[in-house]
C-alpha cells in the first residue's frame, strides 16, 4: 500500500467553502502551494508532500516531551530558605484544593487532557494513513482531531508561564526545572504538529485509503506504483 500523501494521489476537488458556502474547485496543488477561497479568502488547503511524515514526527516528539514535562519539576521558588516546587500536574490540583473545582477541571482539560487526546488521535490517524492501512477508526479520529484543536491551549499556557516568571522574578528566586524546558519544546512540537495538518489533504487521504480497499475487495486490481508513471 502506498502513502496516500504522495503527490499523484490527489485530484481536483469540488467543495464548498466552509466560511462562505461558495462552490469552489481546489486544483491539484504542488508542494508548498496553498489554496484560498476566491470569494472570502478562507485558507482552504496547504499542500505538503511530506505532511504525514512531519505530523507523525512532531506528534511523537510532543508526546515524549509532554511526558518529560509532567515528570520533572517545572518551576522552583526559593525564598528565605524555604522552597516550593511546582509541577505541571499540581497546577489543577492546587486550584482544586482552594475550592475552584470547575476551574481545575478546565485547566487540566485545556493544557493536559485535550492536547494529549489530540496527539494520541493524530498518531492513530496519521500512522495508518502513512502506511495506507484502512483501519476502521480513520473517520472518527479525523473528525475529532480537527474539532478539538481549538480547545488545546498549550501555546497560551506557555505565554502565561512567561508572564508569571516576569511577575515573580521581582519577588523571589525562581529556578527553571527540566519540566519547564521540556514544556517549551513540547509547545513548539505541538504547534508545529497542528499547523502541519491539512484538513482537506487529510480527508482526501482517508478517501483514497478507504477506496483502495473497497476496490481490492471488489476484485479490482490496482497496479501499485505503476499507475502514475
Amino acid at each position, binding site marked *: 500500500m502506498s502513502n496516500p500523501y504522495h503527490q499523484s494521489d490527489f485530484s481536483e476537488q*469540488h*467543495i*464548498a*467553502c*466552509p*466560511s*462562505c*458556502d*461558495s*462552490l469552489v474547485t481546489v486544483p491539484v496543488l504542488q508542494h508548498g502551494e496553498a489554496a484560498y477561497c*476566491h*470569494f*472570502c*479568502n*478562507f485558507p*482552504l488547503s496547504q499542500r505538503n508532500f511530506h505532511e504525514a511524515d512531519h505530523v507523525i514526527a512532531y506528534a511523537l516528539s510532543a508526546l515524549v516531551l509532554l511526558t518529560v514535562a509532567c515528570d520533572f519539576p517545572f*518551576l522552583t*521558588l526559593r*525564598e*528565605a530558605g524555604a*522552597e*516550593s516546587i*511546582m509541577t505541571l500536574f*499540581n*497546577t*489543577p490540583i*492546587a*486550584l482544586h484544593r*482552594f475550592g*475552584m473545582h470547575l*476551574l481545575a477541571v478546565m*485547566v487540566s482539560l*485545556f*493544557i493536559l487532557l485535550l492536547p494529549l487526546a489530540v496527539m494520541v488521535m493524530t498518531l492513530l490517524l496519521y500512522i495508518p494513513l502513512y502506511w495506507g492501512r484502512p483501519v476502521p477508526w480513520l*473517520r472518527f479520529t*479525523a*473528525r475529532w482531531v*480537527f*474539532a478539538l484543536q*481549538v*480547545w488545546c*491551549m498549550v501555546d*497560551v*499556557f506557555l*505565554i*502565561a*508561564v512567561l*508572564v*508569571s516568571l*516576569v*511577575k*515573580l522574578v*521581582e*519577588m*523571589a528566586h525562581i529556578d527553571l526545572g527540566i519540566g519547564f524546558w521540556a514544556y517549551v519544546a513540547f509547545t513548539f512540537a505541538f504547534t508545529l504538529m497542528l499547523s502541519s495538518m491539512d*484538513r*482537506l489533504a487529510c*480527508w482526501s487521504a*482517508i*478517501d483514497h485509503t478507504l477506496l483502495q480497499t473497497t476496490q481490492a475487495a471488489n476484485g479490482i486490481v490496482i497496479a501499485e506504483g505503476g499507475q502514475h508513471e
Partner: protein
Amino acid sequence: MSERLTPADRQQVACHTCYQVSDLHSTVCPRCHSPLHARKHHSVQRTLAFLFTATMLYFPANLYPIMTTSSLGVSEPSTILGGVMTMIDMQAYPIAAVIFIASVIVPLAKLIALYFLCWVVKRGQPLNLKQKSQLFRIAEFMGKWSMVDVFVVSLLVALVQIQGLMTVTPDIAALSFSGVVIITMLAAESFDPRLIWDIEPRQIEDHG
C-alpha cells in the same frame, strides 16, 4: 459581482467537517459520516444567548479580585486591571501590554465583533462581506488567548505556596473570567459564518 454558486443552488448540501458537497437529501456526509445540515441550527439565537451570558459574566470578572497575594500576613487582593497597573509600576511594559490586550481588549473586542456579526446577519448591509468573514476568523482565533490571565493565576497558586511567608489564592473573578472566555468561544463556535454571505443579493434565476 462574480457568479457565486452555493450548494443549495444545485440541490446539494455541504459538510462542515470535510467540506464535501453531497446530495440535499443525505442526512450524513458520505465521506466523514458527520451529520449534515445546510446551516447550523438556530445559529444566531444560540450565539446571542452565549453572548448575553458572557456579557453578564464580564462584570464580576473585572470588578472582583482574580487572586489574593498574602505576604508576611498582609493580604492583597488584585483585579485584572490591578495586575496591569502593578506591571506598569514595575516598568514591565511589554508584559503589561500582553495582559491588557489578552484580558481586557480581546474579550471586549470579541464580544463586540460577534454582536456586530449577529446584527449584520439579521439586518446588515451586504457590503464588504470579505472583511466581515475576516473579522469572524480573527474573533474565532483570538478567543483562547484571553485565558492567559487565568493560567497565570493557576500557576501562581500552584507555585507560590510558602506558608507564613508568601501565598497566592485564587478568587472568584478567575472563575467568572474563564467563563467569559469559554462562553465567547462557544458563541463563536455556534455562529455560522456562511450566514454572512447569505445576505448577499444574487440572481440565481438569471444563470439558469
